[in-house]
């Protein structure tokens, strides 16, 4: 990740740090539609992108936003949009097209309470929508989940690099709290842009013969395209896993949490350790590809895992599949915009600690 040459920190909202990260990554076009709790991203982009000779458009809808991204990405430049669950729902058609046309871009989702109009509190109920794919067809997209202001910047920059490296849309996904929260962020220098892309439609002689499309009328051709995508996804799964471990070395209980919940659990684990409970945490930073190997290795030593989420347990299956159900996987979740307190999570850990590793 690009974290060299950092400057003294600025106290800044997570949502704004995303825009700074995008600009530092060489993104020069932003297309988006306002929605709480993601609107500061559009607002910051409206200030910064025109000021550096870039483009900001407040689109008429999320549907239009993602298609503007599709058009801009087709010409080979770095581009992005951002929204929250309801808007991401509207973008799913376009994301499927982007995936099949192999267009790099970054889509940010600042999750709020759902389903339906729900509310604007923080939630993680859109894990399935983003990680398990909400659009049509056999595609996947890398998903990075920041849990701090610094990571909002760093992972956005990283997302642009992964998007170009694999020619794929990449998600940065977090909750309303991480978007709204202010923390000190040290911004790095801009990273160099990749060379002009020879596959793009750049409106010049060199690329005139190029076609950006997701149509493969012949069944065999479409199957070949799908197989190509699957090979690409296998590469991503091999190379691009990111996860952080916290106090896992002697852990009998391994907690799995991402985003704001991992922050709460960090506090909880300190409380639990003070009481002598051997608990540690794995924080998936890439939700896809999922840190299967790390979890599998820890499952060989630990007695049980507990997944904490602001949802009905959307990440639980990924944990269970990673460790082949070798040890019990418990779950505790809150929904509707509620975030559990460290003490509440401690009670959960104590309860399961008392039950032990019995299935």
């Amino acid at each position, binding site marked *: 990740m690009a974290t060299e040459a950092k*400057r*003294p*920190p*600025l*106290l800044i909202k997570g949502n704004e740090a995303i825009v*700074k990260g995008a600009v530092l990554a060489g993104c*020069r*076009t932003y*297309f988006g539609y306002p929605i709480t709790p993601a609107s500061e991203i559009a607002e910051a982009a409206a200030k*910064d992108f*025109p*000021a*550096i*000779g870039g*483009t900001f*458009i407040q*689109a*008429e*809808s999320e*549907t*239009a*936003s993602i*298609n*503007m*991204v*599709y*058009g*801009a*990405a*087709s*010409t080979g*430049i770095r*581009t992005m949009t951002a929204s929250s669950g309801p808007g991401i729902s509207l973008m799913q058609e376009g994301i499927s097209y982007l995936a099949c046309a192999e267009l790099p871009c970054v889509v940010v989702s600042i999750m709020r309470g759902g389903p339906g109009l729900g509310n*604007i*509190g923080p939630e993680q109920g859109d894990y399935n929508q983003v990680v398990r794919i909400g659009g049509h067809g056999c595609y996947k997209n890398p998903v990075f989940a920041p849990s701090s202001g610094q990571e909002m910047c760093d992972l956005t920059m990283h997302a642009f690099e992964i998007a170009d490296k694999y020619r794929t849309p990449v998600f940065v996904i977090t909750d309303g709290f991480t978007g*709204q*929260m202010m923390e000190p962020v040290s911004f790095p220098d*801009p990273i160099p842009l990749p060379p002009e892309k020879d596959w793009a*439609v*750049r*409106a*010049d002689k060199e690329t*005139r013969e*190029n*076609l*950006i*499309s*997701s*149509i493969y009328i*012949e069944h065999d051709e479409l199957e070949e395209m799908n197989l190509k995508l699957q090979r690409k996804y296998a590469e991503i799964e091999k190379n691009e896993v990111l996860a952080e471990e916290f106090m896992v070395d002697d852990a009998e209980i391994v907690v799995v949490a991402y985003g*704001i919940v991992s*922050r709460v659990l*960090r*506090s*909880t684990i300190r409380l639990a350790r003070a009481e002598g409970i051997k608990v540690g945490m794995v924080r998936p930073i890439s939700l896809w590809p999922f840190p299967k190997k790390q979890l599998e290795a820890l499952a060989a030593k630990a007695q049980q895992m507990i997944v904490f989420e602001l949802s009905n347990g959307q990440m639980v299956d990924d944990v269970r599949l990673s460790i082949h159900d070798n040890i019990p996987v418990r779950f505790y979740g809150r929904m509707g915009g509620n*975030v559990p*307190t*460290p*003490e*509440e999570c401690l009670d959960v850990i104590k309860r399961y600690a008392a039950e032990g590793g019995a299935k």
Partner: protein
Amino acid sequence: MSAPNYKPHLSRSEIFYPTFERKSGNKEVTHYCPGCGHGSLHKMIAESIQDLGINDRTIFVSPVGCSVFAYYYFDTGNIQAPHGRAPAVGTGAQRARPHSVVISYQGDGDLAAIGLNEILQAANRGEKMVVFFVNNAIYGMTGGQMAPTTLPGMRTTTTPMGRDTRLAGNPTRMCELISTLDAPIYVARGCLASPKHTMRTRKLVRKALKMQTEGKGFCFVEVLSACPTGWGMQPVDSHQWILDNMVPQFPLEIFVDKTDLDHDDYIPPKAPSPETFHEVIRIADAANQMAPAQPETKYKDPRIKVAGFGGQGVLLLGLGLAQCGMMEGRHVTWLPSYGPEMRGGTAHCHVNIADEEIGSPLISKPTVLVAMNQPSLTKFEGELVEGALVIMNSSMVPNKPKRKDLELLELPATAIAEELGNARAANMVVLGAYAGYTGVLSLETCLESLKTLIKRQALVDLNVKAITKGFEFGKAARG
């Protein structure tokens, strides 16, 4: 720009590929049905691109519909777009590559039904693109269903008894709709029903494309076109049908022509130099690092909840605490209560200042409560840890906490601020008092933080006084 040399094209335009290699089956012929208008319109566009010499610059956006395969034929840059979204895709491409000539080529279902929003908004923004709108009053590719432009009484597979306008609405007139907008510079309708009409349409196509070479603005050319297959007619009859039935509904006019007017072009700011880049994106002005204060252990690593009415500067006070903590090299977080609650009602925020990395930014058991009004004290008193510090704005909080285990600092913040001339500085009085009372932050840091916190220079003096007064009050109260 000199007038292009329009020669009659006696052979096939060079803008068409010699053979259609992207197409399966016979690569010598198009996929269009006999009598279909797409071939004629493709030809007009190709010849104009050739005459204007713009094929390298052209990005042809193919939509969903029979013309989904336009990229089989046009030797230009090609992008295939999702159904109805060609104007949005074209917008993204054109803004990304401002020298490009973007052509959006759409049918009636694509443009006037599913893509109605995208076309109107792109037109209203005055995107630099030309939209060719093929109106054949029916969905061709999906097998002859009703389109927004289907005529009253016309039979389609989804209006088997004829389009009943009481149930299925009336034909949409797109040129008329778009000409109500201010931005489009050229809006015209032609048809392909006779050689005379075809020649006229050819001129419309050329003019709209030429405007793109000059970067003038949004052009919209609708073309009434036959779909003999969808209509169940012989090609020759279908042309007469256009004249008899479609033209009365969709008059052949030039609705807007502002092509001769001067064009007020937006020129974006130049990209900043590497030296000024950080300044331009506002990340250069990092606050000075200050020497950390050395508080008593009991006040270290505070978890602070700040609460009050909207308008009391509660969020700014929280921000000040976090800013000062950061300047003294500590880990900090600031988390607001966000959303509708912010507007008019009560507001609160959570501030952590800590020596080690902060876990939860959300504070469930505060060690410090700043209560700017009575409801805040009543609401949050219960969640405080034992022995927590309560700074209550005694000017506005008549009733003390019920709990007896709390450490209380009664601070008439609003009254002190009023004495200084502005009640709104009460929040900075609290910032100073917190620093003076607990020693968590130094007075110097609080004053230095104003450079970041207060944008209006006129207010700095007031706030310096407020912080200083508060600091003295806090220090004296601590004894």
